[in-house]
């Protein structure tokens, strides 16, 4: 009876961090403490507010965090508006984990990694980045290119500045779309910034962001000499079941919830352009 995938477990929000004007990061635990379930980097969970609705969210925290899960969520619709109005102590429902994870223990092992994120696109990559930082000796050099509209819209800014920037072998390259007072870093869009930085191609690239940013960044990487088989991304489409049955997140014969959300870019070539 308890393996019914549509029936969720209860989680309690134990901390809410305000990241940007429209992004908050929620810490979720079981009511009796501990994680609701285990996951791998890149996998997702269905969060719901009974009476309001359910939605798919990437799990932002790394599986190496043994105490809780985190979700960085942008306020943009019905369920997310409700989540943003929550206070600590509020219960929500959680089910998962869903989907294929990033191949952190296979294809990524021993390789140099280039993470490229735009805006809230950092949320799914943070799980991978922190997993690779935790098992630091199993991966090569790590580059992180992250951009957003303004410096106020950079998610996880404190963690980036206070932790990621201080790790050996980790280089962080931040950019914002337009000039802003108090910002002396790079200004410009992510795809161009990636080309300017001019990475060598002996690495795996992982992209997440708005569809248009993914498209241009992939093209930029190809200009630099990357092959699509070296580039991974993670997708999002409307989902209700998260288990490949409700019939709406498909791109051609693949279901994003089950066959994705992580895809290698050459796998996307096989699918029609309907995402």
């Amino acid at each position, binding site marked *: *009876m308890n*393996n*019914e*995938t*549509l*029936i*969720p*477990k*209860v989680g309690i929000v134990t901390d809410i961090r305000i990241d940007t004007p429209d992004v908050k990061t929620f810490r979720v635990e079981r009511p009796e403490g501990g994680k609701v379930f285990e996951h791998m980097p890149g996998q997702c969970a269905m969060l719901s507010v*009974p*009476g*309001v*609705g*359910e939605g798919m969210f990437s799990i932002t925290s790394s599986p190496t965090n043994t105490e809780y899960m985190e979700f960085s969520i942008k306020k*943009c*619709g*019905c369920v*997310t508006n409700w989540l943003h109005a929550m*206070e600590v*102590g*509020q*219960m*929500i*429902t959680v089910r998962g984990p869903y989907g294929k994870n990033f191949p952190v223990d296979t294809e990524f092992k021993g390789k140099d990694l280039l993470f490229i994120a735009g805006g809230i696109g950092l949320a799914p990559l943070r799980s991978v980045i922190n997993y690779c930082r935790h098992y630091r000796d199993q991966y090569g050099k790590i580059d992180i290119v992250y951009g957003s509209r303004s410096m106020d819209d950079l998610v996880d800014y404190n963690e980036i500045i206070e932790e990621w920037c201080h790790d050996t072998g980790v280089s962080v390259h931040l950019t914002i779309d337009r000039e802003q007072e108090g910002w002396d870093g790079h200004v410009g869009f992510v795809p161009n910034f990636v080309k300017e930085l001019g990475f060598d191609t002996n690495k795996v690239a992982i992209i997440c962001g708005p569809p248009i940013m993914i498209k241009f960044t992939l093209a930029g990487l190809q200009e630099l000499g990357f092959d699509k088989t070296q580039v991974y991304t993670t997708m*999002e*489409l*409307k989902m*209700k*079941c998260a*288990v*490949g*049955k*409700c*019939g*709406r*997140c*498909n791109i*051609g*014969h693949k279901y994003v919830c089950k066959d994705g959300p992580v895809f290698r870019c050459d796998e996307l070539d*096989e*699918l*029609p352009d*309907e*995402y």
Partner: protein
Amino acid sequence: MKLVKDLSALYEAIAAVQELYLPVENKGRVDFKLYEAGANVDIKTLKTVRSAKDFFFTQTETLMGFKVEGKNIEVEDLRPEVRPFVAFGVRGCDARSFEVLDKVFLVDPVDTVYEARRKAGTVVTLACGRPEETCFCTNFGITPEAPAGDVTTWLTEEGLYWQANTDKGEALTAAIAAVFTEGDGKAVEEQKKAISDIIAKLPLANLDMTHLEGVKEETFWGHPVWKDISETCLACGTCTYVCPTCQCYDVRDFDCGNGIERFRCWDSCMYSDFTRMAHGNNRNTQDQRCRQRYLHKLVYFPRRNEGMFGCVGCGRCVAKCPSKLNIVKVIKALGGK
């Protein structure tokens, strides 16, 4: 061969051991209903208006409840209790639709509600004495003269011939043994022949399907048929609701006043909000949605399931679409006709 001469006695006998569902006429419309004495059973009408998918995948069902109190939530498992039942008078097309639905609901992770119903149900199929103009099941390898099922039956002038095919079918047969006599089965052979003769003459029963074998998405992606058919599509969703294999569903919450119930209900890819998200919609136009529906049945589903088509040729969409659109037109257009 087992023969039943008194059909009422058969229904009574089955209903005495399990819940019996069978085609019942009500105000000119035939649909599967729970049998009760005096019901206007109609097993001569070829097709029920609704398909038989309700037996295993019901139009709406409550799956869970939530008690919400302040910040606290309690989850309650409200999945329906499933009792053994007999689905009698199912035609070959609908029987195949169960196999199609199995490929969705019984693959990992298994849908436990569907699985429970599938285990609890004994399917008694009925040969299609007189296939109709809208029938095209034979294109999908379905045999309407001897449909697959736990039990296969043939309605002849002598009575109903009965042949058990599975353990479940044998168990049902044993439980109602008293209703059977023996017949020579000649009428069955005659009927099979007669059905084949009708099929040979039906307009849609012998389509050329070769252009659909082993194809990928890109073959038909930019085909003009999507624009053509979507121009008159009303997006009413009738095709998906009468379709025995359409399995898309929605999950929604309902506030009952003293708690929240979360239910699942049929949904339709023909609706504009089916894929709408806060940040946009990846199928914005009706031609994209029509393409999704037909390519799902003819290309996506077969690609995932060893070539098995997601259409069973029941012809309900052919008969019911208010704009006279249907999958047969699409199959023909994709083949250049």
